[in-house]
């Protein structure tokens, strides 16, 4: 019994860690798509951000400079997407795919050229990373009823970026529903013409939205490369950008539901890791591949069956053309 409980809490703690990049990316996607710009390039921006963070951490040895670099690269890629989709009214899916391919290719090529380890960056020292920390020791946490053990085993002991990720959710919610920017953002994704005739610049609003998306993807990338892991390895995002996109759709483009969807996918991921090599009664050893495929299968099932009519922003994917 004791052991089962320990298993459960450790899975929950792992859930928070696996959900962190998803939450960053889901919020990124939400800002972009609420403005009407499809963001299929979450994956690429995150990957490029991860690479930038790892490189800068190697060179400067500072986790903070690395984070800054990741954010800058994320924003830069987002601006590229914005230029193609907003200014030149290109196809948003094509531009997003291009960003993904570019990031996947460039990171390996540059990594090989600079470090010569088959695309991997050298292992980072703890000073160059965001390390887990605790404000309370496990013993002192036990003094507090209910919340204490929860802190000791689940909430406490993660790195800073995990907390930042979950803090972006209420912030995103507040921005979206309680600020002028949020009102305009929601409006421009529904009907850019309304925004235009209200005397507001559609392009500037959408640029701000994709910049926020780039920034959050940078955070996600930095988390993967210099917090969860100790360096960059090729294709390390492994489809998380797409899973985040699915979580955002599952959450119907709303911050809290999207976060819960991320936690669900994170939970599956955490269980998958935990189940590796475990022998289940009646089934035998579960193939690792089957478990790793679970989040993706779930995505398909959820999107196909349980979401109902996905309530996408009405103008999603349509470039705004004023003149006929």
């Amino acid at each position, binding site marked *: 019994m004791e052991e089962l409980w320990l298993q459960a809490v450790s899975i929950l703690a792992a859930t928070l860690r696996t959900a962190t990049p998803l939450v960053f990316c889901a919020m990124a996607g939400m800002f972009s798509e609420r403005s009407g710009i499809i963001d299929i390039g979450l994956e690429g921006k995150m990957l490029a951000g991860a690479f930038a963070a790892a490189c800068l951490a190697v060179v400067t040895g500072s986790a903070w400079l690395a984070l800054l670099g990741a954010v800058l690269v994320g924003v830069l890629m987002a601006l590229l997407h914005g230029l193609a989709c907003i200014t030149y009214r290109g196809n948003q899916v094509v531009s997003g795919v291009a960003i993904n391919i570019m990031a996947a290719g460039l990171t390996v090529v540059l990594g090989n050229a600079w470090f010569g380890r088959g695309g991997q960056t050298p292992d980072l020292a703890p000073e160059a990373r965001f390390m887990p920390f605790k404000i309370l020791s496990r013993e002192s946490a036990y003094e507090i009823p209910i919340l204490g053990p929860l802190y000791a085993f689940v909430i406490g002991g993660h790195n800073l970026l995990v907390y930042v990720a979950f803090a972006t959710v209420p912030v995103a919610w507040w921005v979206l529903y309680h600020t002028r920017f949020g009102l*305009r953002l929601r409006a421009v994704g*529904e009907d850019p013409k309304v925004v*235009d*005739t209200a*005397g507001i610049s559609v392009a500037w609003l959408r640029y701000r939205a994709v910049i926020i998306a780039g920034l959050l993807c940078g955070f996600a990338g930095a988390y993967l490369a210099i917090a969860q892991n100790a360096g960059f390895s090729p294709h390390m995002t492994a489809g998380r950008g797409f899973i985040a996109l699915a979580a955002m759709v599952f959450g119907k483009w709303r911050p809290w539901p999207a976060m819960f969807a991320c936690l669900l996918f994170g939970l599956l991921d955490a269980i998958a890791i935990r189940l590796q090599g475990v022998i289940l009664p009646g089934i035998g050893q579960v193939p690792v591949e089957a478990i790793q495929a679970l989040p993706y299968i779930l995505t398909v099932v959820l999107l196909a069956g349980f979401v109902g009519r996905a309530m996408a922003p*009405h103008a999603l994917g349509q470039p705004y053309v004023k003149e006929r």
Partner: protein
Amino acid sequence: MAAEQVGIAGSPSAEAWPAAIELRGIDKSFGAVHANKNVDLTIAKGSIHGIIGENGAGKSTLMSILYGFYTADSGEILINGKPVRIHGSHDAIAAGIGMVHQHFMLVEPFTVLENVMLGAEGGALLRAGAGKARAELQRLARDYGLNVDPDAHIADLPVGEQQRVEILKALFRHCEILVLDEPTGVLTPQETGQLFQILRALNARGVTIVLITHKLREILAITDTVSVMRQGEMVATLPTKEATREHLAELMVGRKVRLELDKTKALPGAVRLSVRNLTVIDGKGVKRVDSVGFDLRAGEILGIAGVSGNGQSELLEALSGIRPLSSGGIKLCDLEVSPDTPCGPAEVREHGLAHVPEDRLRLGVVTAFPAWESFVLGYHGDDEYNGRILMDREAMTNACGKLMERFDVRPRDPQLRCGSFSGGNQQKLILAREIARQPKVLVVGQPTRGVDIGAIEFIHRQLLALRDAGCAILLVSVELDEVMSLSDRILVMFQGRIVGEVDGDAADERTLGLMMANAHAQAEDAA
């Protein structure tokens, strides 16, 4: 009253009292289309000024330039005597111009309050502005009778109220000049009356009103001055009290037009189309057509009136085989259609039903096709168009050319892309295609939407001739005048149901209008 005098008197006194709007030499082209040609327009302060013209005459373009939606290629805009540069809607709003667009500029999932605040939030956070906006909405409701629930979602409001939100948006931004683009297209006659009352109230408080319309009656009912546009040019401006329907119509079209139709008494024959308990439920689970039943006989025109969006489109689609029935049945001559025995458009067509769709660009023609290709669509399997293996291109082109002649489609070139024809000529082409095979039943949706007066006249005469030749015609139109002048019997649709039937000769606008709003049933419910 004084303001009206100024507008009419012309420049000397106009300088003493500057015009609300003065447009000088506005010119605008979209590619090859010259939408506005050197347009001059003066609108007196405090007046209600009508701008009338046919579809495509350039009225909307001109107002879009005034509102900063398009930028003019050349020309000057003066507001209250001062030259202004309008680069975007922002500048227009700052200059005191408000606009009620033909297609409402409202975010559907938003509430009324959010829509009104959008762009005039009064601060970076919504909370502070929302309180003030609420108070202001209450004041506007009190002063002008513009009552709308601020927390209602736009998508849940009837069109008339949505339009009020558009007006409220403009007033909330302190507009002194209110431009309304075809505001009555979606309203019942009663709602139109209410709108005009609101406009008069606004006008009495000094708001200058510009009303754009293609309906002569509205111009005569409410405006002080009227300007007429034709093919991108401003052809005349005159005081409304000196204008008559005939004169305005002539100015709009550029030649004499006959507004009245010669219609003989119908001689109905056998029942050709019989509809029983027809119900259509759409993909969202909404009941669009609700237990509709009627008989349509040979040699009569049955009109279906109603405000757009009350199930007419779905009824048309169900009859023509495009949309499956949910329950009930249709009997077309000897063909029985029911949910268990569905029929596609081809089968329905084979049994003698021709369909002129409401939305001709979506369902009627392929704009990228040359005229002859669109002309054979649906009939492309006919023997006369096909050789042993390949289609007979020459036969199709010839057939198209012949009917273009008979239906006066201009220009008479079967090779021209469909998109390059005007709305009226596209419609004549479709009508030619559908009528050519002498259908037993013709189902027509909005036959004259976006069609110029000359073509309207032609299309109406063709429909009457077809009726007299023994065809059964079902006419669906949101233009009440059209339904009343053509139909032998009129059904009124409201929320998918048929709420009334009136004899064509006995129909009057008031009765139909009340039925369209279903006021009769509502009064009963209340009692």
